[in-house]
């Protein structure tokens, strides 16, 4: 459930961008990664990464909004600089630009402290250390407590650790994710900006004819998507404290799975993304638990292929008939 809601949060960003611009935003998983690492950097700047430091309970409430705001700013800048000039270009180009942006962000984040010299002494730049190339461990901001536990048969034949244990952290993750999703639901279906977003995703030209500022709406889509990805990154960081270095393939893989979730749910469809995320999370975990843990990636991608073969537009997607 917790993993599923993480996937769902990331999938929302993919699905929103795809809905409006019709391209796969490969930089999205990078934003997610930066969200996770940004939480770590913030925690470090407060000195919470040292062992034995008392972490105030307010910490998550402090970090989460900061990371979300920072990442949405980043999403805004990326859209403005890299994607907007390509609004009329073929979609493949935008896709490749997205790959370029992802590479750029990843490797910028991975910079280590060093001195860059261009020419001999023509230009010397001191490069600060950002994330670096080492995996780090996130401090546990949430106390590791079990909220609720069901054990099947009492004592004897139940091995320790079996039964269902509900961790506080999982409850918080699901709760945060659900809150954000409800907020998004309200934003998209209950506000003027939301109806502008939906109009742009249906038909960009007609929307602009009707007086909607298309560029601003698209920017806003990116801002919201990036904020959701950042939130997912933060939740990921507090759940799995080990953070891999920025260019590690696990980040891309997580992003890909979230994207698969968006596709399975019917890309461009917000409720579909949530359902798809939860579905992928469930299938992955149950497959890993009952079949084989090594093949978890396989389940996800097989689900993708079978869903698409059976329902070419995803579960909630509308099949469109191409007209001449």
């Amino acid at each position, binding site marked *: 459930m917790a993993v599923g809601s993480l996937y769902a949060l990331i999938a929302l960003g993919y699905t929103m961008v795809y809905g409006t611009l019709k391209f796969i935003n490969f930089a999205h998983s990078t934003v997610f990664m930066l969200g996770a690492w940004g939480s770590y950097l913030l925690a470090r700047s407060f000195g919470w990464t040292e062992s034995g430091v008392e972490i105030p309970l307010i910490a998550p409430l402090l970090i989460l909004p900061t990371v979300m705001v920072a990442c949405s700013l980043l999403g805004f800048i990326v859209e403005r600089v890299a994607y907007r000039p390509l609004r009329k270009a073929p979609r493949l180009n935008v896709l490749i630009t997205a790959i370029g942006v992802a590479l750029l962000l990843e490797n910028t984040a991975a910079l280590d402290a060093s001195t860059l010299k261009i020419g001999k002494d023509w230009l010397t730049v001191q490069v600060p250390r950002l994330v670096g190339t080492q995996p780090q461990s996130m401090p546990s901001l949430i106390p590791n407590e079990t909220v609720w536990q069901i054990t099947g048969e009492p004592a004897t034949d139940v091995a320790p650790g079996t039964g269902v244990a509900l961790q506080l952290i999982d409850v918080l993750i699901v709760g945060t994710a659900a809150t954000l999703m409800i907020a998004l639901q309200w934003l998209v279906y209950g506000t003027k900006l939301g109806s502008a977003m939906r109009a742009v995703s249906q038909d960009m030209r007609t929307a602009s004819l009707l007086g909607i500022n298309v560029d601003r709406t698209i920017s806003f889509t990116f801002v919201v998507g990036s904020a959701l990805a950042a939130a997912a990154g933060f939740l990921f960081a507090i759940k799995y404290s080990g953070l891999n270095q920025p260019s590690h393939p696990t980040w891309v893989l997580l992003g890909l799975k979230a994207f698969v979730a968006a596709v399975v749910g019917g890309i461009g469809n917000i409720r579909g993304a949530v359902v798809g995320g939860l579905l992928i999370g469930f299938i992955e975990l149950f497959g890993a638990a009952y079949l084989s843990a090594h093949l978890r*990636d396989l389940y996800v991608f097989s689900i993708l292929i079978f869903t698409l073969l059976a329902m070419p537009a995803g579960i909630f997607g509308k099949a469109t008939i191409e007209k001449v």
Partner: protein
Amino acid sequence: MNSNDKPPMWKWLLKGYGPFLIFFLIALGVYHVPVAAVGEYNLKIYTMACIAIVMAVSLNVVNGYTGQFSLGHASFMAVGGYTSGFVTYYGSFKLWGDTQIHGGLLGSGDWLFFGSMIAGGLVAAAFGWLVGLPSLRLRGDYLAIVTLGFGEIVRVILQRSSRVIYDAEKVAETPVISFVNAEKKTELGGLVTHIGGTIGFDGLPKYTNLFWVTFVALAVIFVCYRLKASIHGRAFIAIRENEIAAEAMGVNTTKYKVRAFVIAAFFAGIGGALFAHEQATLLNPRELGFQRSLDYVIMVVLGGMGSISGSILAAIGLTILPELLRSVEQFRMIVYALLLIIVMIWRPQGLFGIYEIWELPWLRRLVGRIFGRRPKQ
């Protein structure tokens, strides 16, 4: 056309297969380039560039000519590479009892390698057919996502294979059938043989040399170029331009889409075989994942969709560029990414668009001005 107009057999053969003879001679020439004069590092880059050319040009058949979007080209490469690696590695054991290189240029070992390349290509082509089938139902991005998913599945399955058998005696006493892995039978890994799992397939004989990369690269370029002008190529391009119109003109679009996938996968398999025997010490499933597929897509788009010379130049450029940028160390990938973004914004249609280099309008005008001829319209 009257059947009497047909050119005589020898002319026809020469025109069709003569170029391969020339490629063979060129490749022989390249093979004899002294290593000391050029430097081993440069030769390595040359080899990698040739493999990149094979991959980019073959991907161009699917992405460029047919306009289908494949994000799983490296998985065909993996399938071909592993198949051919399996054939040469265990084949060598069965034939000679070790994995040394046997025979010199075009010696017995080279023929084994050639056979394994073809085998790798064929198996990859079979997978290409398998992936091409969904394109009956899926369009555009969905197809891309399925090819991507397929690539990831290939990677996971390859990673679940078990370790390579290094011992000659053990290989000799293992019957071919039991190469199906017994110890991991409970999992899907049982389907895959001893090809190294996550650590990679090591100990492959290093058969890929200057002769093979040159010959294969030239042959693939030639075949793909001829393909473009053939009846198949025209059908591919018709599908790219407008699928519905192509269908209305009597092009069997599904058949040709699958055909494009099969052809591209075949060449990708051969490229994979070259890659596998180039690495020699390590062939790793992770190397051939999603990132590498993206690299080839970048080459095709950068060169211009459907432009072979564009793909070739992009493949060479994108192989050399990261090497040139080694001097700026950790900023290498940042510079690379920036260049990519800038080129895409500045020249969205790729370097050459849909033209070949000699078809570029401005180049023709320039040449016409220099040599005093009027440019052909």
